[in-house]
């Protein structure tokens, strides 16, 4: 980089930074401020006193919040694992040349393309215990064998996970595919000439070079998974008995339904901190080599 380019580069950063500052950084700051206050929207007479870390202390001792955190962690772990694995497999599939590849690519993108509010309704419909098509697919017309997926705590969580994996595996696939595209074809040719097997080609060439894309997919998937909301809201409303009461849904209920603006903000800040820590861990462990010189 030539030193006379520095001013230009800094200028290039300005528009994006401005948008981010105004529409994200400032609201985030406000939310953090709110998390240090005690505010009940329906009781404005109580004002908005500054209570320091009280909201966080309460959060720490709140059994429902702890349960939410556990549920969310299970959700994030399972969905990220399945989505990245499936995404990688899908990307590898689509990366090869074969007739109908474009059609498959479009197909695979459909789950991601549908608005979450719609796909949540769709899965609520598909998992229904009486007329749900999943029961029909598994048990045909033997209605007495139908399972009430969304009525049992364990299967309800699995259903929400399945719905999310279906939706987001293609997001991961698309990202990883972009990463695969960058790998030059000659490397594979050379390896084939040298007699390398498919697995060796994958291990030696694909895997190291697709890591940047995988990292981005991992990072953004984890961030999004921690903030899952629509699926739980529509499919189960957080039930049965809080079995799918993910953290963001709990925060929403506290903030918008019950009116605990300060406490709800604290939940959001908590999610933020957790995700931030995870991101730092990822970047440290996996990304260091990726972020630095190739």
């Amino acid at each position, binding site marked *: 980089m030539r030193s006379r*380019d520095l001013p230009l580069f800094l200028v290039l950063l300005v528009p994006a930074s401005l*948008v981010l500052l105004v529409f994200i950084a400032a609201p985030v700051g406000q939310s953090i401020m709110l998390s240090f206050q005690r505010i009940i929207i329906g009781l404005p007479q109580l004002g908005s006193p500054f209570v320091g870390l009280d909201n966080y202390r309460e959060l720490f001792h709140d059994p429902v919040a702890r349960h939410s955190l556990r549920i969310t962690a299970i959700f994030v772990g399972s969905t990220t694992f399945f989505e990245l694995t499936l995404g990688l497999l899908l990307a590898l599939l689509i990366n090869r040349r074969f007739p109908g590849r474009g059609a498959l690519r479009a197909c695979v993108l459909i789950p991601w393309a549908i608005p979450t509010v719609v796909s949540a309704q769709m899965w609520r419909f598909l998992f229904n215990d009486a*007329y749900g*098509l999943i029961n029909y697919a598994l048990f045909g017309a033997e209605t007495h064998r139908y399972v009430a997926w969304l009525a049992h705590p364990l299967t309800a969580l699995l259903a929400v996970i399945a719905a999310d994996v279906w939706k987001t595996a293609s997001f991961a696939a*698309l990202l990883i595919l972009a990463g695969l595209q960058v790998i030059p074809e000659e490397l594979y040719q050379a390896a084939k000439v040298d007699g390398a097997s498919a697995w060796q080609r994958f291990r030696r060439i694909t895997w190291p070079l697709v890591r940047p894309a995988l990292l981005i997919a991992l990072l*953004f998937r984890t961030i999004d998974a921690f903030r899952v909301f629509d699926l739980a809201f529509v499919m189960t409303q957080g039930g049965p008995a809080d079995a799918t009461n993910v953290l963001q849904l709990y925060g929403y209920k506290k*903030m918008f339904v019950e009116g605990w603006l300060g406490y709800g903000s604290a939940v959001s800040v908590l999610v933020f901190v957790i995700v931030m820590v995870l991101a730092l861990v990822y970047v440290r462990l996996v990304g260091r080599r990726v972020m630095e010189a190739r």
Partner: protein
Amino acid sequence: MKAKIGFGFGVALAGFFSLVPFLLFVSSAFKTQTQITAVPPQWRPEFSLDFFISAIGRYGILDYLKNSLIVAGSTTLITIGLAALAGYALARLPRKWAGMVLMAVLACAMFPQIALAGPVWRLLRLFGWLNTYQGLILPYVALTLPLALWILTLFFREMPEELEAAALVDGCTRLGAWFRVVLPLSAPGLFTASILCFIYAWNEFFLALLIMTDPAKQTMPVGIALFQGEHTVPWGEIAAASFITTAPLVLLVLLFQKRIVGGLSAGAVKG
């Protein structure tokens, strides 16, 4: 041979699992009302277009479609524009510096959206931008910038600097080199980022719900949420609407799919 069969099987499976749940749901759009929730379910629809007619005529889907196109389209153009410029800068600035900026940008992507909604709403009210297109577009740009920036920065970094050096030697300005050399070669990254941005803006619900209450400006996700009356979930119309709302996106992908994977020719890279 075994590899080929395994491959074919994988393709079929991928297609099957992506499509089938959606097709099952959308087939409801072609059924009659009592057929949809029949117990046990009937998967072959009695062909009827009533729900499509209802979705368009009674529920006004096409207006929501128009608004979504405007909002998502503008968001994508602006985000990609900003991210391409800023990403180039970040790709060429010293690594440590750029790394810090990228982490800060990432931090912006991490904050739960529902908490942002309130402050953003107040901000928009201050500007008088509630129930306007820009009131939705700008927050969406902010929400999609982090991912776009990360994708494009890493893509631009992959470009060996020799290519630009050659252009600069030929008398191009820095930006000229960017425009003529780097951008075309990053087409996969650009199109991937564009599609992801577009889809995000197309599907975003919560902010749209709070900001747009004027029916003339509401986007698809809010529109579909409005289908539900009190205690009624019109599965048929919702299925029809899902069909209509997904079609443009699929078309978009089909149109641009060559670009997504129209990768670098080895020659250009080796250069």
